[in-house]
């Protein structure tokens, strides 16, 4: 034990003296999570939370256009812009502004749109009234040439397009439903205070079945929606932890090159203690790094207008997960430092392999949307098990039992890497 502690003390003195190195170990991951959380905040935000300027070229000037504009304007998602510099927006101008990227989305409500919807409502009302012996309203055949046109900025993403189109269809349907009820009220002579439009229960029925999101299980802690902070802080903190391969491998190779490793090799029977001490030390550094990043997510990012990081229903369960991730990252560095001869080989390999493993493991893009073969490959990345383990706790609000598999995989693979490194080091000690 004394030999392990001696090695931890030695590593601490060496790291303390390398102020720039220590700062990089803590500051760079902090900068990384802040930047990534900020730049990915918008893409991660649910469209319900975002507000876009919606250009509207209203050539209709009827009730449909009015209701669509009012409905869209009242939703939190859109700010309706139907005039610019005091003049109504025209279709060509709208297209031009979208092409220039000044707006993301625009709709053109053609002349006669209200008349077309009203005609459609009349036709339905007439069909109904024919069967119950009421009168008829004037109606004609529908015109295919009249439809609401929607234009997008060419860079708008498909999910955004789908979301805006759905919202627009919803308001047009509501408008059509209102007109239909108006027509039915008129045919049945229930106008004014008796109008069907004033019947809240009927209006609710016309809207159809309501959809509400519910919690999966009651844990006493509000379910956390995945957002930029919930994804980026753990993901990039884990990525930063794995970058410990650079100091670990670099330190080992430097010690071999400067001869200090030879001094240790000449002391009888200490290689395993030195190896343990070195790994313990860097596991501690990695854990400090991880918890510092979580602290930033909980206390600093909210100051920047970002959501606060939530640690789930069982926050203490993250401690064994953090230790297992730190062990995995450190032993990977130890493995690289043992098997590669020079820093020129080890450091680029270490850095690039961490980037590859992180891409495979869902740090950059959630694994669910990766191609199937890559999803299978993700299982080979310790970063996948690390991130999934953290998500089990932070997003799914599950406890320690849910991450036992993750802990076993991370620890088991680390022990294997450590064994391979140890074998290499004992062979090397015998062949200096």
């Amino acid at each position, binding site marked *: 034990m004394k030999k392990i502690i001696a090695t931890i003390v*030695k590593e601490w003195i060496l790291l303390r003296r*390398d102020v720039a190195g220590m700062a990089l170990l803590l500051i760079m991951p902090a900068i990384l999570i802040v930047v990534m959380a900020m730049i990915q905040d918008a893409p991660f935000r649910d469209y319900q939370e975002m507000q876009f300027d919606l250009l509207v070229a209203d050539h209709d000037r009827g009730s449909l256009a009015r209701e669509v504009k009012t409905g869209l304007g009242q939703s939190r998602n859109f700010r309706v812009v139907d005039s610019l510099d005091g003049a109504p927006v025209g279709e060509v101008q709208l297209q031009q502004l979208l092409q220039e990227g000044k707006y993301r989305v625009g709709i053109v409500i053609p002349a006669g749109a209200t008349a077309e919807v009203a005609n459609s409502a009349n036709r339905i009302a007439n069909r109904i009234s024919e069967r119950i012996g009421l009168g008829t309203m004037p109606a004609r055949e529908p015109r295919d040439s009249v439809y609401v046109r929607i234009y997008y900025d060419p860079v708008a993403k498909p999910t955004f397009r789908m979301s805006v189109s759905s919202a627009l269809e919803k308001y047009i349907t509501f408008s059509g439903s209102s007109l239909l009820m108006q027509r039915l009220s008129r045919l049945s002579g229930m106008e004014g205070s008796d109008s069907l439009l004033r019947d809240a229960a009927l209006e609710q029925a016309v809207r159809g079945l309501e959809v509400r999101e519910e919690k999966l299980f009651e844990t006493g802690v509000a379910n956390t929606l995945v957002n930029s902070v919930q994804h980026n802080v753990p993901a990039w903190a884990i990525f930063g932890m794995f970058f410990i391969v650079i100091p670990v491998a670099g330190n080992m190779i430097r010690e071999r090159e*400067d*001869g200090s490793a030879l001094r240790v090799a*000449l002391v009888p029977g200490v290689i395993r203690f030195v190896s343990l001490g070195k790994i313990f030390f860097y596991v501690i550094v990695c854990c400090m790094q991880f918890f510092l990043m979580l602290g930033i997510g909980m206390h600093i990012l909210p100051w920047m207008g970002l959501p606060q990081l939530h640690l789930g229903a069982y926050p203490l369960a993250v401690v064994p997960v953090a230790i297992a991730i730190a062990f995995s990252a450190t032993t990977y560095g130890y493995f690289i430092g043992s098997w590669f001869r020079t820093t020129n080989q080890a450091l680029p390999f270490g850095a690039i392999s961490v980037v590859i493993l992180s891409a495979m493991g869902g740090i950059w893009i959630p694994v669910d949307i990766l191609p199937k073969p890559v999803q299978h490959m993700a299982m080979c990345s310790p970063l996948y098990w690390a991130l999934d383990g953290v998500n089990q706790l932070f997003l799914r609000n599950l406890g320690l039992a849910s991450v036992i598999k993750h802990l076993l995989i991370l620890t088991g693979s680390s022990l294997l890497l450590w064994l391979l490194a140890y074998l290499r080091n004992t062979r090397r000690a015998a062949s200096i």
Partner: protein
Amino acid sequence: MSLAIEVYDLHKRYKGALEPALDGLSLQARKGQVIGLLGPNGAGKSTTINILCGLVTPNSGSAKIFGKNCIHDTVALRKEIGVVPQQIALFGNLSARENLMYIGRLYGLNDNTIRERSDMLLDRLDMTRHADKRVIRYSGGMKRRTNIIASLLHQPSLLIMDEPTAGVDVQSRALILNFLEEYHEQGNTVLYTSHLMDEAQKICDEVVIVDDGKYVVSGTPGELIVNTPDCTTLEDVFLHYTGHTVRD
């Protein structure tokens, strides 16, 4: 007098090497002596030392130090020996004291013992006032002296030194050689390699000259000078046996 080092018919060929590093080398050295292992570059001195330290395994032959097998009994062997490698085997970003504290703890010594021995050795090799500076800032001589101190902390019975005075100034060299003489006078055994023949002639009780991985000749410096024709110095003897061809 009993033997400190017994080497019999050592053969070693490194992977991919055309020539063997050791080709049937045998030598013996008695306890309490300073033995000089001399030879030109590539003669096999470092390989012999590495085998004696248990760092390199020979292809065949045997090597023992104080009766302990250098190939199979390395843990017990390394407790008995102190090695001063040609390389400065110290942590550059630690001070001499921090290096000694770490190395001492690895040897299982308690902190008080480490401090006492460090103070004594630092003082003896004139390093006390630099002991708290980082090794990386030391001169070549200071590094060599600290390298020697680190090898003596656990009080070995045999000190193996691979060119301990290479690249040091005259003053440091004199200090190291004086220290070696004192250390020898205390009854300790030293195996020493060097390219500096005057140095070897001055401090060695016996020298063994090796070349091309083979034993060439051995004896006290005086005996070798007297018994080799036209030689007045150990350097003459060395050149007589190893020739004037430059080795790479």
